[in-house]
């Protein structure tokens, strides 16, 4: 049962950052996010990516990983740029980073003992 001092957070400004990247980098990227930005509210799952060169010809199907992170709005741009470079999506057909909105969220605060490790 929820204690009075443990009420869920109110509405705020959050961003959901989703990164589609080549498979194999997910775990490493979660660690980079935690170490450099203190982001612990992220998860990774596998996916397959399908892309086209032209509009009608399917030319590649790749194994991907998708990282989803919930971050406070003021931190979002920094996390976005970190992911763009660290995930290696700045080369052709590697993937993309996208940022959408969320207006209520929780779980973005790192544990106190983890805060010491954050650079």
């Amino acid at each position, binding site marked *: 049962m929820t204690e009075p001092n443990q009420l869920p957070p109110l509405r705020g400004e959050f961003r959901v950052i*989703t990164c589609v990247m080549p498979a194999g980098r997910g775990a490493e990227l979660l660690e980079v996010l935690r170490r450099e930005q203190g982001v612990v509210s992220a998860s990774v799952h*596998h996916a397959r*990516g*399908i892309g086209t060169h032209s509009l009608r010809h399917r030319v590649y199907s790749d194994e991907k990983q*998708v990282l989803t992170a919930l971050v406070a709005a003021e931190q979002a741009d920094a996390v976005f740029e970190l992911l763009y470079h660290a995930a290696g999506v*700045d080369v052709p057909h*590697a993937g993309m980073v*996208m940022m959408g*909105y969320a207006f209520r969220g929780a779980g973005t605060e790192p544990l106190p003992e983890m805060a010491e490790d954050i650079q």
Partner: protein
Amino acid sequence: MPRVRKGSEMKQRDEIVVLTDAVLITCIVQRGVADTVVDAATEAGAQGATIFYARGTGVRQKHLGVLGITVNAEKEVIYIVAPSDHADHIFERVYVAAKLDTPGMGMIYMAALEKMATYVPPEVAARFGQHD
């Protein structure tokens, strides 16, 4: 991946080309239907899609009656990023192709993206120039 088109609002910031007129279409269908969705989306102009598996829970047994047992709980989720002025067309084509007007077939929704970034060839980025 949205096409880079004339008229797109693009920003160059720390060497990241950011596209700000993109929309994320998410489609959740029964397992095996994703290829139909992707084919419809690419024919409608989408340049790519990301597909992953999920397990769906819902009210199908309760409200669909005997039809509920025909609905596969294993799902495929498809992400399609599209230019905002083209997204409605892709959305409608996928809706029809995946028969989403039928109860239990799945769902589709579209959400605005504040921005997205991917590889953009330098010559394409140069064509659009830089602005804040």
